[in-house]
């Protein structure tokens, strides 16, 4: 390491991490990139549907960047700070152009233009896509650009390395990290003048989710335990359409609905009202379209129909199943694409059709898919700040504060950042926010590091780093020597089941309290584990045991934040407080870790709503009291 050389560490090699890496490397700073997996295998590859941005076609139909901004705010139930969202929506078309230049094979129209599709929460076609594996395609494009910098020596990748702890100096500045090689198990420190955490979501806290196995939230949790605030933890998106599996829930993209997929359950009309079908397990093709199929989303939301936002679709699907309408009496509804031609499905939805075929063994072109909601995305994440423009229309470009946590020099980008999505994320906005963070806020990181030039991490005292290394080593030693008999896999399983039962689609105060008590029990048991593998080479058992503790720490603000939030908003639905309460809760929940109890302390802070005033959010539901203020175009093109 050069004597006065400035460096940046990026933890996480998904879309946000790679976008940041590329931008920071381009700014001339060397980057050390840490990832649990070869970056090409990051969870971003699982994103399917697409990426939103205003485009010329939509613009000429009346859409604009402002509309995109407004939809995102409305979709998020007004819980997000508006300036960053404003900036993101306005940069979106440029991001698409850039990805296009990088060679992403976006689907094309006959004329060779980028094709567009409809997506949840919008009546305009504004979603760009590459088949049904858009995330994979964007990931690969950024992976390729990163590879270019790697080959030039500007980026050093540490793959199969696990982030363990941020190194924070006495002034509260982040000066590097401690990480572990997952093969040699070596623990060592790395110096850096800024650290970007881009480690994604925490689906594994819920046991089964649509997330990849590394999405434990471990890195976020460690930062939180090290003193970084964690915001809006209770907002967990449950995706309406997933297919159940023994190991995970597999996502069936919202694009299935955007491309015309219809959601229905077998039903019969009794006295003018739908009732569960007496033979709901029957061959769905034999059920009469008019009298035996209840297209409940289309009936309840005539304007948006099947493309209502995820929180709404999820709750509706959940409630019809609870009311006994589920296919075969179970927890499943139909997502029907059989009216689309096979060729159409192959070119526009190929990736997910294949997943369904491989994992369920049925052909969606022949039979409607059977789906049920599954935990998908964390709107909440590490608390970050931003530098708003004077008129609140966007952020100050290059400002070091953009997406910096409360620990100076420690940034959070992508899903691990709580910004942009409020109480519910709109489909195809995640890829956007990840890349936006990397590109727009990456510049702020470079700016921050340049300011640090007078006091580079390379000159900081070694003892500060050694101390964190020693602490991590002793933590591992105690895990390896513990003989309490508890099994980390069992603890994780129980945690997942409890979290899923208490804190997903429908929550209540009493249930959350019960879950917090269970969490207390699990924390105690985590102290008394015995590891089946005490070796010192590629010990996955040890890594898992450690991260289970971090998941337990993160589960606390998810539950407690939900308990404190006595309202219903976006993905957070309390059956004991069914209405939104702007007066008390148009606020960000901010969690701080209490090291003595292992619990979180929750406070609430105001949300910047200077651009769009909160309005009723019902997506034109039939029978709801007030119409939404904005006039929605009548032509919801199919």
């Amino acid at each position, binding site marked *: 390491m050069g004597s006065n050389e400035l460096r940046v560490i990026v933890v996480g090699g998904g879309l946000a991490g790679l976008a940041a890496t590329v931008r920071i490397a381009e700014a001339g700073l060397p980057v050390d990139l840490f990832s649990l997996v070869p970056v090409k*295998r990051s969870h971003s590859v699982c994103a399917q549907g697409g990426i939103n941005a205003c485009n010329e076609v939509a613009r000429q139909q009346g859409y604009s960047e402002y509309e995109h901004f407004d939809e995102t705010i409305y979709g998020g139930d007004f819980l997000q700070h508006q300036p960053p969202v404003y900036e993101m929506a306005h940069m979106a078309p440029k991001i698409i152009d850039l990805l296009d230049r990088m060679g992403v094979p976006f689907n094309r129209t006959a004329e060779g233009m980028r094709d567009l599709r409809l997506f949840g929460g919008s009546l305009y076609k504004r979603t760009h896509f590459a088949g049904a594996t858009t995330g994979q395609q964007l990931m690969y494009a950024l992976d390729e650009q990163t590879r270019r910098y790697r080959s030039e020596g500007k980026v050093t990748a540490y793959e199969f390395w696990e982030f363990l702890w941020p190194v924070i100096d006495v002034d509260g500045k982040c000066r590097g990290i401690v990480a572990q090689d997952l093969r040699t198990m070596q623990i060592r420190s790395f110096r850096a003048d800024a650290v970007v955490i881009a480690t994604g979501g925490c689906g594994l806290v819920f046991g089964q989710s649509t997330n990849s196995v590394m999405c434990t939230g471990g890195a976020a949790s460690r930062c939180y335990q090290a003193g970084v605030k964690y915001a809006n933890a209770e907002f967990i998106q449950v995706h309406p359409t997933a297919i159940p599996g023994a190991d995970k829930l597999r996502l069936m993209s919202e694009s299935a609905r955007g491309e015309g997929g219809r959601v229905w359950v077998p039903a019969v009309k009794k006295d003018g009202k739908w009732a569960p079908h007496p033979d709901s397990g029957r061959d769905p093709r034999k059920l009469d379209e008019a009298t035996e199929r209840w297209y409940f989303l289309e009936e309840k939301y005539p304007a948006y129909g099947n493309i209502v936002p995820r929180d709404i679709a999820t709750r509706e699907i959940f409630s019809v199943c609870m009311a006994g309408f589920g296919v075969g009496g179970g927890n499943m509804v139909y997502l029907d694409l059989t009216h689309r031609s096979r060729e159409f499905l192959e070119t526009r939805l190929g990736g997910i059709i294949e997943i369904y075929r491989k994992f369920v063994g049925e052909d969606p072109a022949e039979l409607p898919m059977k789906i049920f909601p599954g935990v998908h995305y964390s709107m909440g994440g590490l608390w970050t700040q931003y530098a708003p423009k004077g008129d609140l229309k966007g952020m100050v470009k290059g400002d070091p504060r953009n997406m910096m946590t409360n620990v100076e020099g420690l940034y959070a980008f992508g899903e691990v950042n709580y910004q942009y999505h409020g109480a519910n994320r709109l489909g195809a906005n995640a890829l956007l926010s990840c890349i936006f963070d990397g590109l727009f806020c990456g510049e702020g990181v470079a700016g921050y590091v340049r300011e640090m030039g007078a006091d580079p991490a390379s000159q900081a005292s070694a003892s500060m780093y050694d101390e964190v290394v020693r602490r991590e080593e002793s933590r591992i030693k105690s895990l390896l020597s513990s003989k309490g008999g508890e099994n980390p896999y069992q603890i994780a399983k129980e945690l997942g089941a409890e979290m899923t039962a208490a804190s997903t689609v429908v929550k209540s105060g009493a249930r959350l309290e019960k879950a917090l008590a269970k969490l207390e029990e699990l924390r105690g048991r985590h102290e008394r584990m015995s590891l089946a593998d005490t070796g010192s080479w590629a010990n996955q058992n040890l890594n898992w045991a450690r991260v289970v503790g971090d998941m337990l720490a993160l589960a606390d603000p998810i539950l407690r934040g939900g308990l404190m939030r006595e309202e219903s908003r976006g993905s957070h639905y309390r059956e004991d407080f069914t209405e939104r309460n702007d007066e008390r809760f148009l606020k960000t929940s901010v969690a701080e870790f209490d090291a003595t109890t292992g619990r979180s302390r929750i406070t609430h802070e105001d949300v910047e709503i200077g651009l769009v005033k909160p309005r009723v959010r019902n997506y034109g539901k039939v029978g709801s009291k007030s119409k939404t203020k904005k006039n929605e175009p009548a032509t919801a093109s199919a």
Partner: protein
Amino acid sequence: MSSKNDAKGKAANTRTVRFNIKRCDGPGQPSRWERFDVPVQSSSAGSGSANVISCLQWIAANPVTIEGRKTTPVSFDCGCLEEVCGACTMVINGQVRQSCSCLMDSCAPNDGDEVTLEPMSKFPVNRDLFVDRSRLFNDLERIRGWVPIDGTYDLGAGPRETPEQQQQRYKLSECMSCGCCLEACPQYTLEPDEKEWDHAFVGAAVISQTRYFNMHATGKELAKQRLDVMSGPGGVSDCGNAQNCVKVCPKEIPLTESIGSVGRQTTIHKIREFFMGR
């Protein structure tokens, strides 16, 4: 979203699958076989079929062999579990594939069925079923696997493209670097020594990526450098045309067409070089 299972119900729809797993404690260590009996739920209850991953997870939580001996959990690599990340590739019953999409319902449908798991043989083993595929990524670097853009600032849209070409590129771009084509290739060899990587056969995945980047209007800029690699030792001419690659590719990428295409590109590249100089 919760599953209730009383003891009686469990017995009725549970079968036992025997796993024979080739294990190895680390690079250079001898390998050994261990056997595990794993209870597998039948998927009738709408819970989805068990797969190799869920069985390995079960073993991790209950690491006891059929002889009743306690052992360590089996190390393996996995990520997305929906066959888009490529991590969980291994050799199952003698054939390479992703373990996430290997469903027990189809590969071990009956009580007492056996499943054999081995690590890929063309890559050095880190531990058990967990292998080191860095050579594959190194080869992507060698062929300059990227589009040489001018930077990430706003310079307008990329080149227009016909839907036909997009469909062709998209198919190639689905390659997740899983290594199935390399494992099944009789010409691709295990090269633990990094020094050999520059002249050992690169295999179908990398040849196909060469074609992918050479198809793009901007990507073409580096075509000559890529073809230099492709016409050199370990390049496309080392292909023996067994065409196993295309058979085992989980994404059904037309790898043999890529081999033909890159073959043609190298032919033209070399003839041009012969007559017109470099």
